[in-house]
């Protein structure tokens, strides 16, 4: 009798634990970007395959960053999966805040992840976040306006080509501006762009001894060029324009060129939202003649598991599902190839169906041209192209961004902005003990 009862209890316990392991509810923090929303709509497929359900916490990018940082630093345990970027991944992995994803099954095919993405999302050779979608930056230009102005855009232009095209297309009386660029202050806004411009002029943020380099001639040349280009041929009020503002201007046909994230390509070529959908050409981000680095960045929104979650196994299953080749097929079958999350896997770019998408080739070339381990022509002690992967960067970048934004607004000169940014950076770095 005793044995029978014990057996019954053991069976019941096993059943409970099995069911428990089978039907977890995962809480996932994410951003409100098009590809993420699509993933939320397709979660039923994951639930059908694994039995796990998902609760989404969708937040605005800056709020998300603050919330997940706070939660992971304080070990709040609110999220089982976090959507994080390339900037956070190596820093958090070094702090042992993330679970390594090296043990994902062979069927996941980790080697298929684009090398640049894998490098940016790894720490000490281990992958800590799986790229959901990746982006670089490139030139999007109006083919009709270029033709009208009698200029052409090479596939791999220089800054001189860009300036000449901007000048030729600008027609301020008809509200056509040769070039639209980011001017809004923020480390992820104007500083992402300005840092890539600096890279393409041969400048770097820090030398090998972590001494800030904003007082060098390369920085002065880069920032002067950016300021002149934007204030001469850009739209009015450019100092407050970020990604969304420029996207709106481009879609309304007011920009001759726009240099920004490759993901913008699917927006500007979408005939439902864009008035210029069939008149857009793409080219690599430019460089200065003779400098062997282009002004293109590298970014990925990736899925990571915070250390200490109780649902690690289920969380890994989700990441495997969401960043797999099968998921890409699933999106393609439901929403078409133009809407699959770009920039994560090599196999996607080998797919003949995807090769028909107009911006596919240029996106891949832009991503491949970016190397976060070697962002500048001169040696640097940091990782990151449009950012510096150190915890102090968010503060340093944002402060510098405010100076450059004020410069574009005409409130101060290039020299003043650079001097203030240099002084602030030096102070912050000293305080941080570099």
């Amino acid at each position, binding site marked *: 009798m005793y044995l029978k009862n014990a057996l019954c209890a053991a069976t019941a316990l096993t059943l409970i634990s099995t069911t428990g392991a089978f039907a977890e509810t995962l*809480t996932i*923090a994410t*951003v*409100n*970007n*098009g590809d993420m*929303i699509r993933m*939320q*709509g397709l979660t039923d497929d994951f639930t059908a395959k694994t039995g796990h359900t998902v*609760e*989404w*916490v*969708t*937040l*605005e*990018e*800056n*709020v998300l960053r*603050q*919330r997940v940082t*706070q939660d992971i630093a*304080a*070990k*709040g*345990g*609110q*999220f089982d999966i976090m959507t994080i970027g390339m900037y956070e991944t190596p820093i958090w992995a070094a702090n042992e805040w993330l679970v390594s994803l090296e043990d994902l099954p062979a069927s996941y095919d980790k080697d298929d992840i684009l090398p640049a993405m894998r490098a940016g999302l790894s720490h000490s050779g281990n992958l800590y976040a799986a790229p959901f979608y990746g982006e670089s930056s490139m030139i999007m230009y109006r083919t009709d306006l270029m033709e009208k102005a009698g200029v052409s855009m090479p596939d791999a232009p220089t800054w001189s080509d860009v300036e000449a095209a901007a000048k030729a297309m600008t027609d301020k009386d008809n509200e056509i501006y040769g070039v639209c660029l980011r001017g809004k202050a923020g480390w*992820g806004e104007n500083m992402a762009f300005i840092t890539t411009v600096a890279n393409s002029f041969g400048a770097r943020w820090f030398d090998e001894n972590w001494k800030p380099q904003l007082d060098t001639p390369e920085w002065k040349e880069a920032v002067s060029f950016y300021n002149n280009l934007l204030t001469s041929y850009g739209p009015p009020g450019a100092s407050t324009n*970020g*990604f*969304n503002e420029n*996207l*709106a201007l481009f*879609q*309304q046909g*007011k920009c001759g060129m726009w240099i920004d*994230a490759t*993901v913008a390509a699917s*927006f500007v070529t979408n005939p*439902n*939202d*864009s*008035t210029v959908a069939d008149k857009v050409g793409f080219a690599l981000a430019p460089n200065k003649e003779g400098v062997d680095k282009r002004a293109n960045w590298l970014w990925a929104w990736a899925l990571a598991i915070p250390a200490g979650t109780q649902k690690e196994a289920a969380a890994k299953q989700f990441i495997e599902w969401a960043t797999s080749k099968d998921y890409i097929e699933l999106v393609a079958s439901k929403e078409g190839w133009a809407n699959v999350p770009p920039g994560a896997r090599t196999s996607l770019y080998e797919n003949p169906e995807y090769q028909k998408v107009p911006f596919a080739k240029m996106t891949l070339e832009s991503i491949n041209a970016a190397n976060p381990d070697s962002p500048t022509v001169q040696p640097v002690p940091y990782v990151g192209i449009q950012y510096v992967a150190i915890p102090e960067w968010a503060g340093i970048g944002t402060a510098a961004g405010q100076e450059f934004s004020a410069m574009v607004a005409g409130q101060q000169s290039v020299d003043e902005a650079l001097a203030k940014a240099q002084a602030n950076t030096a102070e912050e770095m000293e305080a941080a003990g570099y």
Partner: protein
Amino acid sequence: MARAVTTRRKTINTIAAWAIGLLIFFPILWTILTSFKTEAQAINDPPLFFFFDWTLENYAIVQERSDYMRYLWNSVIIAGGSTLLGIVIGVPAAWSMAFVPSKRTKDILMWMLSTKMLPAVGVLYPIYLLFIKLGLLDTRFGLTIVLMLINLPIIIWMLYTYFKEIPGEILEAARMDGATLKEEILYILTPMAIPGIASTVLLNIILAWNEAFWTLNLTAAKAAPLTAFIASYSSPEGLFYAKLSAASTMAIAPILILGWFSQKQLVRGLTFGAVK
């Protein structure tokens, strides 16, 4: 002649009041209008005012993507609960300060108000850690307590001001007739201060409903109120202004309707005791 001047002044006053009212209401009106546009119309330049193809598409998408009722229910519980709790604590506190003041009453009132001068972010981390320890993260109970504490100084100050207007002699008379303290507060003071209490309640519901710092920082999936619902439609990479406007309109609609129906009470309460 005098009558003509009055009419003119009246007209000017009316026009000025409408102009100011419309100016204040304009951002809300614009949000509501944008919610009926397509994403392309939402960013159209020049902006489209009334003449566009009105669509309910954004509302359908928002409904499909988010569980609006769950957010709404969380907002109702958190805003209502924190206000109710605040009133239960605030009425006796304001009574004692208004009718049996001590030497330090004014200082205490000032001290309470001074807690409102501290930026909320300054205490975010201690409260976050406390919430982790107490298991209150992402719970409606935790958020109700925090919002009650944040609004308590305002509740006590408002009630104190209203109670000061009530003649102490009336309460004395009740005491002479043998009323206990509880009876005095419940049957004499409270009914007389109903307009004041009502406007305090309304104002605090509005404040708690709109509170977006703590509600975003202390919630995730379970206790998230309508502020989190709006935040989930804000996007730095993609133009979703029409959908964001639809979500915002849905989030503010309940409080807008409440404010509309209770505006008489609200104005009466806010100007209570202003004219002697």
